[in-house]
């Protein structure tokens, strides 16, 4: 009978080098430590490659304008300076960009949660004719990315005079989101039907069953969908680029591209602006990383 640690060490050896090491060797404490050590070393190396560009962005943002134009580049700023930040906020309405992004993303998140939960509940709990057809249609829209239909949508928005407003960004969120519907559908399916049936006998209508049974029972899914929707909306650039030209209505994603497009911008300014645009997301990620990871991988896992 093998003990559990032994089995783990066996897995370790094959993962590490791809070839089999004899058992007696692997059993020695030294060999095990060596393997663990090299795994950590590799992980740290990969982590550096993945994270360092972000750190580099932050470091650059604290450099003086002259320091980003020297070779070889300095790793740490010679003098930590806020000059880049000051210039970005002085020359561009950057606070406004951030506020715009915040308001748009909140509205998009609220809309997505409401409309997706309604549709998902209808698909899971209610029995009615045409349900499968609707489900297939929603499934199909996953294949139609916004980029492929942006020309007609742009014309449509021009016709209803919604260009240069936030409506083209916010309204679609209130009209269902295939990804959100899927995510919630997966979770709603795990909720026993009997709970809803019992409530119905007590005189609850579908809306109350949704609000008081389904929603409370899938709080973490809502958190995950909410966080991910917020992040995606914050980072969305193509739609606002097309629909919003007014500088004072731009979200930060387009604001950043706009700032980058001005020839006069210096790398330390661009990095300062990028850092500012990213900080809210990294904070959110730091607080709710469980939900971010869950939301971004959920539909994937439940196929």
């Amino acid at each position, binding site marked *: 009978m093998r003990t559990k640690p032994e089995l783990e060490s066996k897995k370790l050896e094959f993962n590490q080098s791809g070839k089999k090491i004899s058992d007696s060797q692997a059993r020695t404490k030294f060999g095990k430590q060596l393997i663990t050590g090299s795994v950590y070393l590799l992980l740290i190396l990969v982590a550096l490659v993945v994270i360092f560009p972000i750190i580099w962005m932050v470091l650059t943002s604290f450099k003086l304008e002259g320091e980003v134009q020297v070779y070889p580049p300095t790793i740490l700023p010679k003098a930590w300076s806020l000059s880049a930040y000051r210039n970005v906020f002085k020359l561009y309405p950057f606070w406004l960009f951030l506020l715009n992004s915040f308001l748009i993303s909140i509205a998009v998140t609220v809309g997505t949660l409401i409309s997706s939960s309604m549709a998902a509940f209808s698909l899971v709990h209610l029995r009615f004719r045409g349900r499968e057809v609707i489900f297939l249609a929603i499934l199909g829209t996953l294949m139609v990315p916004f980029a492929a239909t942006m020309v007609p949508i742009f014309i449509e928005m021009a016709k209803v005079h919604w260009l240069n407003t936030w409506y083209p960004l916010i309204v679609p969120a209130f009209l269902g989101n295939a990804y959100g519907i899927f995510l919630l559908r997966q979770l709603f399916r795990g909720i026993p039907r009997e709970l809803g049936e019992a409530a119905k006998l007590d005189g609850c209508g579908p809306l109350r069953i949704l609000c008081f049974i389904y929603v409370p029972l899938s709080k973490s899914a809502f958190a995950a969908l909410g966080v991910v929707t917020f992040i995606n909306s914050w980072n969305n650039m193509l739609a606002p680029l097309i629909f919003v030209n007014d500088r004072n209505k731009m979200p930060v994603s387009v604001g950043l591209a706009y700032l980058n497009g001005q020839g006069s911008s210096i790398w330390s300014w661009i*990095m300062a602006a990028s850092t500012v645009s990213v900080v809210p997301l990294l904070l959110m990620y730091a607080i709710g990383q469980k939900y971010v990871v869950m939301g971004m991988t959920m539909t994937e896992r439940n196929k």
Partner: protein
Amino acid sequence: MNVSFRNRTPKHRETLWGWGLMVPTLLGLFFFTVGPFLVAIYISFTSWSLFQGPVWVGLANYKKMFHDPLFWTSWWNTAVYTGFSVPLSMIIGLGIAVLLNRKLRGMAFFRVLFFAPMTIGVVASGLLWAWMFSPQYGLLNYIFHFVGLGPFRWLTSASTCLMSIIIVGVWRALGFTIVIFLAGLQSIPEALYDAAAVDGAGGWRKFRHITIPMLSPTIFFSTLIGVIMSFQVFEQTYVMTQGGPGNSTLTIIYFIYQNGFSYLRMGYASAVSVSFLLVIVMGTTLLLRFQDRLVHYEN
């Protein structure tokens, strides 16, 4: 609302509620996906500059498209981008996931780190990489200088530009694939490996005959999503290269954007959009059809 349904049969009422709760989604389908999809097909047969109303031109846009070298260039660039970035992020992601899939201390911490690039936007990551790629003052050339390589021109040369964009794509997608594969690996029952070990299977054979088949649904779906996502590559090229130099990073969405919104050729842009939709829909359907042959499902 509930009151008016009271006197109807319960089944009837459920139908009304079912469709009623679907109203927003149906409106969304009509105005923002299926509707525009059909309109795109119509516009592709017209000449339309927004200021001058649509004029029916038949197949003219399609004829022009097939003879337009830029159309083929942008498809080629998109294919190259996808062909490199998807397999690269999958292979590297799988490798790292295998390393992470053990009960060592601090694994959760590494997972959080690897996933971080996913959360920062494409615009910010495009810009920060453009800065890393800077041929004169960039960090990358400085690092490569130490190992005796370079200097590379990165984004400023037609031969390295697309590769540079691919690096950014892989960097961003890596965290996602790692987490997906980790979840997949953790769902493989330990007993399978134990049984194989009893039968004397070595590390590689276990990997080849247990890990890969058991992970195949995960691999399949992340490939599918990866391909669909990387077909839409746009933001990187928009902020980093504007499609250049010499159209070397002109991607299909960028091409649509350029025609539609810079040159206001709505008809032509729609024809290209239709080609894009056809490729995506046909590709996805084909892959899903061959799913049974490619993927091992338990039971």
